[in-house]
């Protein structure tokens, strides 16, 4: 019994990592294609049909590139930093529910790696670890751009984490649980984006800032900092940072879907549990498209504007949202 259970967990973990890596590879292609279309270009279309083999070509190219470690860099931390960034990005997805229980080869299998009762706290805790990776990468490179990029990134991520944490409280208050499975099941009557529109907007804005993506991509503002904290990275170490960013994009879209768009819920899902993952993937794709769309259309914030938005607008609004939600929950009984 115990060995089969261990085997099941291992298989699920391997499948999850496989999904995330494939998702990462094709998300880079999707981003380049969508950006190209928005800018009236074709995008990559030489490697395979519609450029479908482009991510493979990119991966092989990066694998055989020289990986430079600058002479004055702190070598141990320089190598550790991409690991510290990418491992949490993968591990955070353990609590994502992809669907309800399904039967595989006559065995009841639940479509998540782990269902812990503090799932949202776990997400917040693991997400904060990524700040260390970015800051250490900037610090250990012995490069002005990298150091400034790392510092900016850390300040930005912790500033927006406050409003992010507060916006998570809305769904938690309504569902009365931190478990993502419970939160999804509580949305059977109505998606939380209807009850919590403000929290949804704040969650979306702050998570774009946590991702360091446009219009919040100041840590890697090309015109002033070349590439920010990963200026000195090359080869597969650079690819690891890239991987962390895109895996986190998938995670953020998935979390948005789970918290506000009913996760794996959808029509006929209760009869056919296999539809659950398909609905979730569709919702994730919509989220990813919006993230790319934002990058293509919005100009970058200035740093003082960014800090003002985070501390003086989003934080009080998120706090107000929590108080109003709590009062309404008490009034409704």
């Amino acid at each position, binding site marked *: 019994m115990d060995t089969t259970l*261990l085997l099941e*967990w*291992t298989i*699920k*973990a*391997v499948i*999850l*990592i496989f999904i995330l890596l494939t998702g990462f590879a094709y998300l880079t292609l999707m981003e380049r294609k969508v950006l190209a279309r928005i800018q009236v270009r074709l995008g990559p279309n030489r490697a395979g049909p519609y450029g479908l083999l482009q991510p493979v070509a990119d991966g092989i190219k990066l*694998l055989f590139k*020289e*990986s*430079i470690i*600058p*002479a004055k860099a702190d070598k141990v931390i320089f*190598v550790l930093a991409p*690991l510290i960034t*990418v*491992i949490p990005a993968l*591990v955070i997805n*353990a*609590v994502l529910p992809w669907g309800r229980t399904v039967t595989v080869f006559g065995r009841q299998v639940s479509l998540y*790696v*782990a269902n*812990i009762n503090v799932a949202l*706290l776990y997400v917040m805790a693991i997400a904060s670890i990524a700040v260390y990776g970015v800051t250490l990468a900037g610090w250990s*490179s*012995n*490069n*002005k*751009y990298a*150091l400034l990029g790392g*510092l900016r990134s*850390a*300040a930005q991520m*912790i500033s927006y*984490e*406050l409003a992010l*944490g*507060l916006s998570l409280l809305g769904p*938690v*208050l309504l569902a*009365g*649980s931190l478990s993502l499975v419970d939160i999804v099941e509580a949305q059977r009557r109505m998606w939380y984006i209807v009850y919590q529109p403000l929290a949804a907007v704040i969650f979306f804005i702050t998570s774009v800032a946590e991702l360091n993506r446009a219009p919040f991509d100041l840590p890697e503002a090309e015109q002033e900092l*070349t590439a920010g904290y990963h*200026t000195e990275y090359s*080869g*597969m*170490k650079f*690819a*690891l940072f890239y991987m962390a960013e895109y895996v986190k994009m998938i995670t953020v879209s998935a979390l948005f879907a789970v918290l506000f768009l009913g996760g794996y819920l959808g029509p006929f899902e209760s009869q056919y549990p296999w539809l659950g993952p398909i609905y979730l993937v569709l919702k994730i794709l919509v989220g990813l498209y919006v993230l790319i769309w934002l990058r293509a259309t919005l100009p970058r914030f200035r740093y*003082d504007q960014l*800090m*003002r938005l985070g*501390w*003086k607008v989003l934080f*009080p609004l998120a706090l107000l949202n929590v*108080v109003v939600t*709590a009062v309404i*929950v*008490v009034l409704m009984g």
Partner: protein
Amino acid sequence: MLWQYVPIAILLVLSTALAVLIVLLDALLGPRKPTFRKLSPYESGMVPIGPGMRRQPVRFYLIAMLFLLFDVEVIFLLPWAVTFRKLGLFGLVEMLVFIAILLVGYIYAWKKGALEWE
């Protein structure tokens, strides 16, 4: 209850193995022809001016301090939100008092100009 975390541990071990494998492959497969210029810090093609690590504005430190204060508040609110339906009106009033005290600190920091970034 602790067994629920075993799958996460498995995922952690697998992801670490994958990331370490990628870094090792990177070291094994790529060419290695270091030169002095290649190993010097990148500064848009210029010869680097001054040291790579220098003093940074104290504002970053201030932001970190403020973050610590208010993040503790968020963490306190999490268990409260979970058990809120059981606590009812009592829980609401208690938390309003808690938030009010922190709001005083927030307004103080705002008035003192700690949130400005000039």
